[in-house]
């Protein structure tokens, strides 16, 4: 019994020492000067941590049905309309009501390209390949939200004509 007690006391002392040594050695050092905090973070939008920034107006989804230019040939086209309430679940895919082979004529919508029927070996299937089922993995709506960062993208035509000029 006494031996046990002695071990316990030693253990308690050891752990106390550990806790002391784990404390921040510079805890008494002065705090760094505040710097302006900027980021792409949509929640804080560059406001300092102690300030609650006012909410920006909510962006509206463009619903004009005008197709947009693609940045490069393989780019998945962006959706030129709102898709509120369109169900894409294991049960139903409302995009394919109009964009399927069978629906394209009735709704005058562009049919999904043949790549959507291919499996990963390039074999063309009878229906849209399961790996293409979730449309929003590649296709997205566009809003009128201002761009958060600038961008210097040049499409391939611009790059070629620049090269010619040189």
């Amino acid at each position, binding site marked *: 019994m006494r031996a046990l007690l002695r071990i316990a006391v030693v253990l308690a002392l050891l752990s106390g020492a550990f806790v002391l040594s784990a404390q921040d050695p510079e805890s008494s050092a002065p705090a760094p000067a505040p710097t302006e905090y900027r980021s792409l973070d949509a929640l804080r939008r560059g406001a300092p941590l102690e300030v609650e920034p006012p909410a920006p107006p909510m962006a509206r989804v463009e619903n*004009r*049905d005008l197709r947009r230019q693609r940045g490069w040939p393989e780019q998945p086209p962006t959706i030129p309309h*709102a898709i509120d309430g369109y*169900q894409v*679940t294991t049960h*139903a895919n409302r995009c394919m009501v109009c964009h399927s082979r069978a629906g394209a004529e009735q709704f005058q919508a562009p049919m999904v390209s043949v790549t959507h029927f291919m499996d990963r070996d390039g074999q063309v299937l009878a229906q849209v390949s399961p790996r293409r089922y979730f449309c929003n993995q590649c296709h997205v709506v566009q809003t009128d939200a201002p761009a958060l960062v600038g961008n210097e993208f040049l499409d391939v035509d611009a790059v070629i004509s620049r090269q010619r000029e040189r």
Partner: protein
Amino acid sequence: MAGRLRQRVRSLWATLRSPSVHFSLGFLTLGGFIAGIIFWGGFNTALEATNTERFCVSCHEMYDNVFEELKPTIHYTNRSGVRATCPDCHVPHDWTDKIARKMQASKEVWGKIFGTISTRERFLDQRLRLAQHEWARLKANDSLECRNCHNYDYMDFTRQSPRAGAIHERWLGSGERTCIDCHKGIAHGLPDMAGVPQG
């Protein structure tokens, strides 16, 4: 046995046929009239009480499944604050059709008692069947419940998105299609749509 029954019926018939001894004709006519109003009113009041969203979602089967799914849709909250409630879409307005629908609904009470859709899984198993009843009903009445609020004649195509306007003009204007042909799942999650025409 049969003889006695026949005798009883005959004496009842005789009582009904004999003129009233104690009450005047005026009293009987007026009393009958007033009683009629009260019963009729009570009947219709009870009918109306079952014709509210609150009544519909008082069953957890409706509250947990279809009501939850209705909430994020445009018929629950929107820009203008005009709402569609369950009976707006599911119960006909004119009286005979309403009674017919209510009589059908008595069958749904059996479903409630026997727990046909008492869990989410059971509900999902039955969903296609239930949805098909609604689609068939709306197809047969040319989407009357939708049209109680949405009238093709007053649709301003310049105010609709271009594709909506063009499609409505082509298929709705010509009468070849009706709302429910294209707008399935407008208010709730869809059942397995494999093989169900949607356009």
